[in-house]
Structure formats: C-alpha cells, structure tokens
C-alpha cells in the first residue's frame, strides 16, 4: 500500500512540479533506510576496501537470503497485528525432520524434500493459526508457547543426535549453493519469494485483506472479510515459508542440529521492523523488509571488516539498530512536515 501511495503521489507531483521531485522522493517510506544503508556503505568502504568487492557482496546476499525469506513471512504476520515467535523452532524442527529423511533415504528427490519441508512447516504454522484464531490466544503468547513446544519436539525427535554433512546427499547440499543461473540458488530463491510475496500483497484480494485485517479487524469483519481465515492463512504461510527456509538452512549449513536457528525469530522481527513494518499492524512493504534485512546483513558484515573487536560487535550492532530506527522516525517526521 505504501508504495502504491507514495510512489503514485511522487509520480503525480513530479510531473506537475519539477523542483519538488527530491522532496517527494523523500516521502517514499523506504528512502530513510536506503539513506542509512548508503551512508554505512560509504563509511565502511572508506575504512575497509575489501568491503566493496563483488565477492563480499555475494557473501552478504547469501547470508541474508534465508533471513529475507523468513522475514517476509514474519512481515505478513506483523501486518495482521500478530507476531510469530515460533519461526525459529519451526525451522529447527523441519530441518531436523527433513535431514533425517534424507539421511535415511538418500535417494529422495530434492524436489520432494522441499515439498515435504513446506508441508511440515505449514502444519506447524496452522497449529499457531488455529490456536490464535479459534482459540482466541494473543499471537505473542501462542507463538511464545509453541516456540518451546516445537523446540522440545526437535529434541524428542532427534534424541540429541545431529545430522552431519557427510550424512546428507551431495545434490541436497547443492540446492542452496549451486549457481546454474549465475547467482547462488539461495539468492535466487529469496528473490523469487520476494517477488511472489510482493505480488501477493499488492495484487490479490487476499493480500489486501491482510492489510485490512491488521488495520481494523472489526471493520474487516463488517466488510465481509473472513478475518479468521485471513489470520489462519498468514500463520500457515509463515509456517510454509519457514519450512522452506528450513530445507535451505539444512542444505546451506549441511547439518541439522538441535539448536538450529535458535534465536532467529528476533532477527526476523528486527529486519521487518527496521524495514518499516508496523508492530501494531496494517503497514509494511516488501521492499522495506528487503532493505531492513540488507541493513542487518551489512551491519554484521562490516563490523567484522572494520575490525571492531568481537566483544564490541554486538553492542555496535544494537546501537546501529537504534540509530536506524531513530533516524528513520526523524526522517519521517520531516517528511510529514514538508507534506503540510
């Protein structure tokens, strides 16, 4: 919605009044975070020339691809004024189950493994969805609970055994790393999913219903939107994408461990929130989330490159997140003022 609005307006105004173009560009919600990324890139590349290399950027893209996929799922949930804290445990459980199957039946076609992962993820996501919609449990509570339940299932399932690299078929490991199209598959998957989600959120009624439900649930019901179904759907989608991410995770890291993706849920929320997704629902865009994930990836990458001591890295990361959020708000306020 944001893009539609702002881009449309920017377009309209730019044609009428040339000087206002840059001001109007600033209205774009994503402008603030882009600016921050730009500044960061310039600063870091001044200190560390290794930063501005194609290889390094490929590393960054590889590293944020899974984050992007799950953050997009998280975004859809956040738009409905929900939150899914269980994505990390879904990834852990699905990765473990798929890896076990692949270890057991190495001949399993990769395509089936991916489908299996998505199916398992969807079932887990629908558990959240059912508890939240028909059980009337607040999302943060329901998914906080299912986070520990799913993680417990990982332990129960694996009985402490890990799946190691040598136990996984080679073609499965290539699923994320192969580069038949010039870019690593992982990055391509992330791009494809981003495009799909963008189209879904903008050009389908169901996608718009997600915004409507998050913006005003009562009104959505008045308008004949089946809010329960929409909410159930976003949690199922969240499970589905997490399941897909789980398969990619197992493929990229060539292992499944009991603590796979532990704590990952906070990263997805952070990426979404930095990308301008409102935690009170109704607002959020795909480009914003992509930028949010990119910012996180760049921060992580650059801190190591500019040789900030490992011990201070986390502090710097937190500080940068705070600065990003504060300056974003400041930029937004300026924009609002200019509008009036």
């Amino acid at each position: 919605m944001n893009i539609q609005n702002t881009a449309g307006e920017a377009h309209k105004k730019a044609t009428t009044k040339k000087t206002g173009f840059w001001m109007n560009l600033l209205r774009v919600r994503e402008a603030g975070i882009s600016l921050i990324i730009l500044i960061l890139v310039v600063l870091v590349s001044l200190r560390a020339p290794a930063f501005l290399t194609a290889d390094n950027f490929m590393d960054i893209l590889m590293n944020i691809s899974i984050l992007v996929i799950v953050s997009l799922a998280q975004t859809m949930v956040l738009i409905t004024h929900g939150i899914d804290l269980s994505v990390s445990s879904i990834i852990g459980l699905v990765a473990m189950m798929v890896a076990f199957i692949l270890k057991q039946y190495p001949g399993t076609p990769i395509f089936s493994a991916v489908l299996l992962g998505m199916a398992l993820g969807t079932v887990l996501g629908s558990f959240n969805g059912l508890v939240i919609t028909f059980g009337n449990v607040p999302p943060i509570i329901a998914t906080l609970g299912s986070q520990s339940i799913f993680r417990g299932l990982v332990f129960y399932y694996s009985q402490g055994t890990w799946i190691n690299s040598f136990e996984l078929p080679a073609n499965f490991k290539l699923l994320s790393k192969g580069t038949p199209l010039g870019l690593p598959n992982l990055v391509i998957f992330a791009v494809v999913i981003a495009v799909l989600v963008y189209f879904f959120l903008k050009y389908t009624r169901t996608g718009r219903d997600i915004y409507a439900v998050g913006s005003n649930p009562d009104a959505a019901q008045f308008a004949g939107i089946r809010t329960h179904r929409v909410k159930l759907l976003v949690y199922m989608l969240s499970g589905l994408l997490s399941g897909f991410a789980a398969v990619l995770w197992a493929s990229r890291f060539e292992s499944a461990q009991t603590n796979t993706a532990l704590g990952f849920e906070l990263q997805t929320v952070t990426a979404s929130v930095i990308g301008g997704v409102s935690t009170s629902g109704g607002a959020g865009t795909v480009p914003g989330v992509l930028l949010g994930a990119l910012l996180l990836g760049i921060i992580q990458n650059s801190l190591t490159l500019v040789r900030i001591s490992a011990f201070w890295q986390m502090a710097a990361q937190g500080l940068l997140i705070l600065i990003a959020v504060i300056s974003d708000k400041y930029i937004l306020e300026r924009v609002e003022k200019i509008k009036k």
Partner: protein
Amino acid sequence: MKAENSQELKPETLIAEKAEHYSLSTLFKHWEWMLVGLIIAVVLVNTNLSPYFLNANNLSRTSSDFMEIGLMMLPMVFIIVTGNIDLSVASNMGMSASFMGLLHNMGVNIWVAALAGLLLGTLGGVLNGYLVGRVKLPALVVTLGTYAFFRGLAYGFLGDQAARNYPPEFTYFGQGKVFGTLVPFSVALFAVLAILFGLVLHKTTFGRYLYAIGNNENAAIYSGVPVSKIKFRIYVLSGFISALAGLILAARFGSTRPDNGTGLELSVITAAVLGGLDINGGKGTMYGAALSLLLIGLLKFGMGLMNIQSQVQSMVVGLLLIISILLPHFVSQISSIRKDRIRWKSILAIVAVVLVFAAFFAFFFWSRAAVIASV
C-alpha cells in the same frame, strides 16, 4: 443488570455508590484462583511423587533460582499493564553485572562497583524510557535494539574475562539466608518488593494511571495523565530493578560473566502473562503474576525432581501458557454453541484438521522410528 431488565425504568434512575457484593461464583472465575488451584495441585502431586519435594532445605535452595526472574517481573508487570514491553531486561542485567565485575577486577571497592552497576542499569532504563516515552518509538522496536546493545556492552566490558572473588558480604545477597531462617535473602527481598509493587499498582494514583494508559492511551492523555512521564519512569524503574537482579545473580554465582542471564526476558514475560496479564495492556494483577511465578517455580522444581528433561519442562510451560488462555475460551465457546447451528461444513473442517495433525504425528513417529532403528 437489574436496572436494565426492569420495565418501569426512568431516565432519572439513580445509581448505587457501590456494587452490592460479588457472588462467590464470580470470585472463582478469576484467573488468580485458577492459579491457586494449580499451585495446590502441583504441591499435592509432587508431594506424592517425590519425597524430596516438601523439604525446607530443597525449597529454600531452589527458590533463589527464580528470584532474578521474579525481580525483573515486577517492573515488567507495570510495563505490560501499560500495553508496552521491555525485551532488554535480561541484557540490562548482564550489562550492569558485567560493569560491576569490570570495576571489581580493576580493584574498585565492591560496594562502589555495585552502586556503579545499579547506576548504569538505571541509565539503560533511562535510554529505553526516553526513546519510548519521549521520542515515542514503539516499545518492541526500542527494546529489541537495546536488547542487543546492552548485551553487547556486557561483552565489551568483560570480554572473555570473568569477575570473581566477590567478598562474602556481597555474595550474601545471593547466597545468604535471612538471619535465623531458611529463607534466602533474595526471596525476602523479592517478597518485600513484590508487596510494595503490588500496593503501588493497585492502591496508588500511579498504578491507576498505568491501567488508564494501558486501556486507552489517548483518553488518558486527554484526561491529563502525564503519559510520557509515566512511561519514562517505568522504564527507568525496570532498568534499576534489572540491574539489581543482575547484582543478585552475580552474588548468587559469586562471579560474573557477560553472558549471564541470556534469554531470561522470555521467562520473565512468560511468568507475567501466565499470571493473567493481558499483553495488550490494561488488565492483570500483581498477585496473579506473583502466583504464576510460584507456580512455575514449583512445577519446574517438581519436574526436576522427577528427572524430567529440561526440554520437556519448557514444553510443559509452553503448553501451560497456551492452555491457560485457550481453555477458558473454549469452555465458554462450547457452552454457547447451538445445536441447530452446527453445520456439516464445520464438522468436516474439524475432521480435516484432526486428520492433518494425525498425519503429521504419524509421519513424525514413523520417520523417527526408522532413524532410531538405524542408530
């Protein structure tokens, strides 16, 4: 309700000054009673299952394990009542304790160091409070940032070092018992603070303002409630108490490392929510929160005695969290279902859902059995 039903009602009907009385049945609908019931059940079951459960020494030792969570829960209740959240408490705790440890390692007097730790923690709260209260950023976003920032500072302070050799006067706060009893000092401190916080929440204007903000922030602003000032204060308070919890933890461990207490914020929130606090604000009580802490503590201790694995323990708490909200809703739902409105479509949906989950678990166990057989 009586007035509404009466036919001869005139607009000038006066209202009563007080509700006449609460019937016993409405009393028992309160979540807090459910907690009391659960606690009694847990005590009875555990007493029967384990001879070590009702043992003063054991209870005394295990109770101090939950006091850091308990302490941080107190201001968290305030914050959740206003509809906000503080994810940074555990990180703040680590930061303050590490700072104290750093100063201690540098040879600073322990009390000065502790004071400095408290001060830093409070400053952390000031940062949160400023960003949430004054700059008006969403609490979730702010504290997600400070969650990383504070923990990072903790690592920055101590790095791979530990602070140790705290003097016994200091470790008393974590390991000592109140003179002449088996009650650990930290438990006594928690009890006193819990009563104090409970009184503030339920008996003061400040507490009333918290509920007003949580229920309708805009209306509270229009009514002259100093909303941003109050938000600022509760975050500062949260920072201070987190630092205090950090010191207690350091005293209990007799040492400090920067990763101390990682992940405790989720336990804190879990305890608060299980205590009946509405995560959206405006609802819940301090005694509910305190009871839920007691419940979780007794439950975990009991399960530990039965050698139930830690993952299963956290699964049980997770299930309890969901069921505690799910169950009352379901009961009221089921009782309000009208038979003539049941459609075959919804029955089909339920059957489908059950089948899907059955299939999931069938697969879950089938694949696992194959794996175990191969090991």
